[in-house]
């Protein structure tokens, strides 16, 4: 013990005090500058890698098919709007967007309307097996949609619902209702129960209380729930394609069938991709603040 003690002391004393501190400062600056660079680099790289495919998609959508296939250009050499023109003039293209929007909106409305009372029950009442039921709801999301494709197809054709918008909207509810319940329950539990009671004491009936007092308080939760329903329903391909033929065919299904007699139309496909991203981007822009709130509540 004594030897190590002495050794440590002589080691520290060997350096003159001035040099000692200078070395320390140098070490510190080296450390600081060394830490600084990768810190900034990582997010930059991350964003570049994220945006690169999107940039390439936008880039392609303004090119002609010959340019896409023959050369590598970072910026379109002969920018063209022909690809977009094709989509906006051909009903078999643009009806895909219309169909998608119809069943997505239907699904959002149904999911939120069904989830609101369910979430209220879960957040305000204790009943036998409430926790298990809540968990069971969530487990519905754990199975991949492919599992449900065949039973849904059988069931919906038995009821003659194949190739209708409502079929897709209802099928997506299986995934979206549990999610909406989960999100809304979090927001509702953030509202003190005393507000409900005060409303009853003041003489509000339940429906009046729910629509006039309660819904405004969880408006952001409703927004976030609707957003997540939108996102799932908008990008989901398998079930939507299985349940539709022509009348309600979604854009994502149309995009998988662009091989025509003249070969693959790359430019139109890229333009369709860009147009598919836009609605999602717009919705995210509107609900971005609410989503942050949802994260703060531990949901989403």
């Amino acid at each position: 013990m004594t030897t190590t003690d002495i050794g440590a002391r002589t080691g520290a004393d060997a350096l003159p005090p001035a040099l000692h501190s200078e070395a320390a400062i140098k070490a510190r600056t080296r450390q600081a500058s060394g830490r600084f660079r990768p810190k900034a680099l990582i997010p930059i790289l991350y964003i570049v890698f994220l945006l690169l495919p999107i940039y390439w998609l936008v880039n392609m959508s303004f090119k002609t098919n010959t340019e896409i296939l023959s050369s590598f250009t970072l910026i379109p050499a002969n920018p063209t709007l022909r690809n977009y023109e094709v989509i906006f003039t051909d009903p078999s293209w643009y009806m895909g967007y219309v169909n998608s929007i119809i069943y997505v909106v239907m699904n959002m409305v149904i999911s939120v309307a069904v989830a609101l009372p369910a979430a209220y029950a879960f957040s305000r009442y204790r009943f036998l097996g409430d926790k298990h039921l809540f968990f069971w709801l969530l487990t519905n999301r754990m199975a991949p949609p492919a599992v449900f494709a065949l039973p849904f197809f059988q069931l919906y054709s038995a009821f003659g619902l194949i190739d209708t918008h409502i079929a897709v909207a209802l099928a997506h509810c299986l995934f979206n209702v549990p999610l909406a319940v989960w999100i809304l329950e979090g927001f509702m539990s953030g509202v003190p129960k005393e507000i409900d009671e005060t409303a009853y004491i003041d003489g509000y009936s339940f429906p009046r209380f729910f629509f006039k007092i309660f819904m405004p308080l969880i408006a952001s939760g409703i927004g976030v729930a609707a957003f997540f329903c939108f996102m799932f329903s908008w990008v989901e391909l398998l079930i939507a394609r299985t349940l539709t033929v022509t009348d309600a065919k979604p854009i994502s299904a149309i995009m998988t069938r662009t091989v025509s007699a003249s070969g693959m139309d790359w430019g139109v496909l890229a333009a369709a991709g860009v147009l598919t991203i836009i609605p999602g981007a717009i919705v995210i822009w509107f609900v971005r603040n609410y989503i942050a709130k949802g994260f703060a509540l531990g949901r989403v």
Partner: protein
Amino acid sequence: MLELDDVSRSVGGETHISDVSLTLARGSLNVLLGPTLAGKTSLMRLMAGLDQPTAGRIRMDGADVTGVPVRRRNVAMVYQQFINYPAMTVYENIASPMHLKGIGKAEIDAAVRRAATLLKLEPYLDRTPLNLSGGQQQRTAIARALVKNADLVLLDEPLANLDYKLREELREELPRIFAQTGAIFVYATTEPHEALLLGGTTITLSQGRVTQVGPTADVYRRPADLLTARTFSDPPLNVLSLEKRGGVFASTSGFRVAVPQRFAALQDGPWQIGIRPHALRPWSGRPEATRLKGRVVLSEVTGSQSFLHVDWDETRLVALLRGVHRVEAGDPIELEFEPDDMLVFSPDGRAAQACASTPLAA
């Protein structure tokens, strides 16, 4: 008149309220006093009709209202947390109970403005509650309760979350504001001095039971049992276990205090003596006073008062002394009290009857 008849409520095998019988007159001010978890809120919820009793009946003006939902009773309630409708302005908040009753616009407007003036809310009528301070939020809730003109007004520790000055102000105003409406006014609090300042009738609660009902000053001066005395004492009541031997109460260690005249007829034997902290004073040397010699454990000075925690004869005493007394921990100290300030309880906690004529069961 609100009558509770042997009302009990238990939830999941746990008794929250047991066998409470009360009669509250119209226009009366009633203070529910008890520590947290004593059942104040549970009892208020039963009175309001938010919860239903598991046993017993509740009658309002003679009509049985047990099981009648709260919507169909004319009650108002203010919670400890500031509960308003965040999506509405202060004006709409105050107006909302009248709106639901279908009262005309002009009448509502007049009532809202009157209440706002009374509670100093006029400048904030167009704001939403969350943009107000805590005191203003609570006054909004009180204004909403006021305009409703309810038969029963329940205030559940309404001032507990407010700052000191506002609390003083509102405590003074509240009973006055509601007295004009002729409602049954129930005010829950954990603080004994708040009950004393409010006056009226005090109902002391302990573990879901009513321990005593009576005019506030009477309950304070003559608690019916040790539980009530403890509830109604802040800082906590000092309790000495002494034995009566003829004309003195004595401890095993040799401490003796003369039995006051009014307790002279008590049986010899063990008694519990309650001494309120403010009844203890520094020893003055007067022969009528009784001296306690102890050792200071902790002293806290709060501006004009000093709290001394004193070890005396294996008992921890708290003394509330006027003025600043700087005493180091471990210092010996001599305190005194007047034998007349003693509260005397039997070993099972019942108050000894002060009048000598009544024979006593020990």
